[in-house]
């Protein structure tokens, strides 16, 4: 199973694959999702000031780690959304943010 997760650029290794497009300030696509990052493209992104990219990775987490990560994300969101739990659009937004954080495609 592949997951998408945002990583600081300085932690990205050549050979890793982009999970989402990299856009510049005008919304122009610098690199497309699926592109394999090379030393050269990483240096170019750094020069353009890109701080982080979304990588597509074979899930590096164990089932237990995935579960811990899911719980962490859900707890953080629940804390922030605790005063609007009975507001249906906010429930929808909370799910949207949870799925985004967990890298799901909806």
């Amino acid at each position: 199973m592949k997951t998408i997760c945002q990583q600081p650029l300085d932690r990205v290794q050549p050979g890793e694959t982009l999970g989402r497009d990299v856009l510049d300030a005008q919304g122009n696509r610098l690199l497309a999702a699926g592109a394999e990052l090379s030393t050269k493209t990483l240096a170019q992104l750094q020069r353009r000031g890109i701080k982080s990219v979304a990588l597509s990775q074979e899930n590096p987490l164990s089932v237990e780690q995935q579960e811990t990560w899911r719980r962490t994300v859900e707890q953080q969101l629940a804390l922030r959304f605790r005063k609007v739990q009975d507001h249906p659009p906010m429930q929808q937004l909370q799910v949207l943010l949870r799925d985004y954080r967990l890298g799901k495609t909806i």
Partner: protein
Amino acid sequence: MTTDFAFSPQAESGTTANPKRSPLTRATLEKEIQQLPALSVIVTEVLTMIDRGDVELVVIMQKIGQDQALAARILRVVNSPFYGFSRHIGSLKDAGMMLGVHTLYNIVMAAGIMGHFPPGEDQGFDRLSFWQHAIGTGVAAKVLAGHCGLHQETAFTAGLLHDIGKLVMAAYFPADFDRVLAARNAQDCLLKDAEQLVLGFDHTLVGAKVAQKWKLPVAIIEAIRHHHTPDLVTDRPYTALVHVADILCRGLEIGHGGDMLIPALDVAAMQRLGLGWEVLRAALSEIEALNASANLMAEQ
């Protein structure tokens, strides 16, 4: 990490509070706001010149050049990845030509206001986290503006300045703001609700009054005043935009605007902008990507 603001000139007017002042009330607010320091003379003159519409760009850039710190910040911003120009821009004249007067207006306005409140720590209120949330909201508004056909620079500035009333209270009315923070902690509520409880008004009113004093554009003033109540001004798209952007920015946990809660989304505001859930979903990654480049504005 040292902190700096690419947008900000060196602060000319430090923010100081008057310890002898009486508690802030709705009745005294207007007078208190009028007594706050003005923006820098150069910033005010440049904004007025651009607003007039009949002053040549070269004259405007000469005026900016009189404030070396402002000039340096404009060059730094224009060369940052946030604007994404492919070549280095070395002169103010070129910066003006590349940016155009509308963008220049927004940058000078942001620089002037951010320079008014340099990074620092007010009691219980971290200005760096505040500006990170402000920039994140500006970025979110800019991204959403691209999806609904609004002007992206105006959207960014409206988002950047939407909570300026909080900073005004933290900087100039610290005793009143301390009581607000205590009420926020005691009630476990949004900062705006604590402000209403303690003062009978909130940061949106303070921000709008300051913005009026500084003669900011109406679209910005309205976004500051009604970003929590967009239903009161349904003909103001930038207000609706900032309302949605603020909530997305909180959801993405970008910076800290004074509380760790998320207010309820006004779905009608979203619909007026023609934004659906699919667009919001797509916007999340765009916001995070663009905010990564905008972070250069808040730290060095």
